[in-house]
């Protein structure tokens, strides 16, 4: 039943994502000043939404773990941190690709919004490293305590856009700055990516539970986004002079999907290992 439901949901996500991407790439009106490059918006913003939501769930699960010491909450915390890091990586890679075209620079060093997002990514990577390197018995408690600290940074990140002067475009949803048809498509994409995030999260959660059950503490919990970071050097081959603007759009979409696919492959690989291990243990 659970497996059937999972595959039904996966199929639904595929269709929904394809629809959202089609809307974003073809149907959405072209932006006046930035042209087609602006369409990166439809992967960048949804990824940020999913990433931040994942970190929020991670915080709730960690607090719940500290309160009740439930293994399920711990598995949920580990899952959401990892999936959140993947989506946050997408934000951090699609953002600079767009910025290179729109601002002419990859990164704006003193921009609070950019720095705080990067900070958030670093925090959750350090969280994942902490989970890997702590001694077996204490992992869950220490990780939960760290998650509470990491989440204290999230409001700072969220408010940075409003408190500090930044180059980053201000929040536009519900304002007159955003064309209603664009907003509509953005919402479709946000929902589609939220479903996608849920799907990956579900998959990863089941794996974490299996890992807990067979007590496979030695399974590597690599930071999921690390593989995606290999895409960064590719960006330096593009300079604004001799690159058609549309390349930035393709680069953004390719980078985002490259990371998602890489993470899915990583999960598949991990699942295969887990299954093998379970078989060896006769579980």
């Amino acid at each position, binding site marked *: 039943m659970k497996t059937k439901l999972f595959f039904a949901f996966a199929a639904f996500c595929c269709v929904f994502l394809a629809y959202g991407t089609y809307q974003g790439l073809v149907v959405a009106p072209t932006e006046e000043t930035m042209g087609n490059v602006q369409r990166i918006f439809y992967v960048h913003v949804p990824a940020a939404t999913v990433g931040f939501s994942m970190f929020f769930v991670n915080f709730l699960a960690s607090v719940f773990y*500290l309160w009740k010491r439930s293994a399920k909450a711990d598995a949920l915390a580990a899952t959401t941190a990892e999936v959140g890091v993947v989506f946050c990586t997408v934000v951090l890679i699609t953002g600079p690709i767009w910025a290179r075209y729109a601002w002419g620079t990859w990164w704006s060093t003193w921009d609070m919004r950019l*720095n*705080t997002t990067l*900070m958030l990514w*670093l*925090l959750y*990577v*350090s969280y994942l*490293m*902490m989970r890997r*390197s*702590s*001694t077996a*018995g*204490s992992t869950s*408690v*220490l990780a*939960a*305590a*760290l998650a*509470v*600290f*990491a989440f*204290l*940074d999230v409001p*700072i990140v969220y408010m940075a856009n409003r408190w500090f002067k930044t180059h980053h475009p201000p929040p536009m949803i519900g304002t007159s700055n955003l064309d209603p048809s664009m907003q509509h498509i953005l919402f479709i994409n946000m929902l589609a990516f939220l479903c996608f995030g849920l799907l990956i999260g579900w998959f990863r959660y089941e794996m974490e539970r299996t890992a807990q059950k067979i007590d496979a503490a030695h399974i590597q919990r690599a930071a999921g986004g690390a593989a995606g970071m290999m895409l960064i050097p590719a960006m330096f081959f593009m300079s604004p002079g001799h690159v058609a603007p549309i390349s930035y759009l393709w680069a953004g979409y390719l980078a985002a999907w490259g990371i998602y696919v890489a993470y899915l492959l990583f999960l598949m690989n991990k699942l295969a290992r887990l299954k093998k291990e379970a078989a060896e243990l006769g579980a």
Partner: protein
Amino acid sequence: MSIAKLTWINVTKDLRLEWRSRDVFNSMMFFALVVVVVFSFSFEKEDSRPVMGGLIWIAFLFSTTMALNQSWARELRNGVLDAYRVSPAPAEALFLGKCLGNFILVMLLECLMAPLFVVFYNLSTVGPLWQLLLVAVLGTWALVVNGTFFAAMSIRTRNRELMLPLLLLPISLPAVISMVGGTTQVLSGEGSPAVQLKFLAGFCVIFTTACFLLFDTVLNAE
């Protein structure tokens, strides 16, 4: 015994241990000195003012990390930490004692290093000095309170000393950014560091509270 008394005992014990051995303080001092000298070779004296804020705090940040690792490593020998855990004394007193001890140590280091910065970089403040002192006090507390907490966390991991910077630096980044910004503003006299000071004060309050609430959990994590 009251919490204040217990805290005082912890502080005096830590400082007495440090006074007798001076292991940590000497290495902190020497490390900060080397950083100052190396950077003074690397930058032109005339244009060092805009980067001074960053430079000063890099030196103090890394020497603080040294002190923090040692402050808990000392308690591991002879199972002192386990004795703390079974004793009826509240964990908060131990934590506050450690924080204050480290704070005194780092402030002392900063006071001793300040003349060196003046000598090597021909430094003087354009803005009011009391603002710089306030940035230093708030910034040091932000570093020390988080650092003491995460040092207690990292000694429970497999690669003890390596883990502390990995945990501490990302958490303290907002504080470090405003410390550096505030210091640079006072040194160059461009703008008032009021925003940074407010931010630092808020950061100290939020994270000190979080540390106190969670320290007991971390100390007894099994």
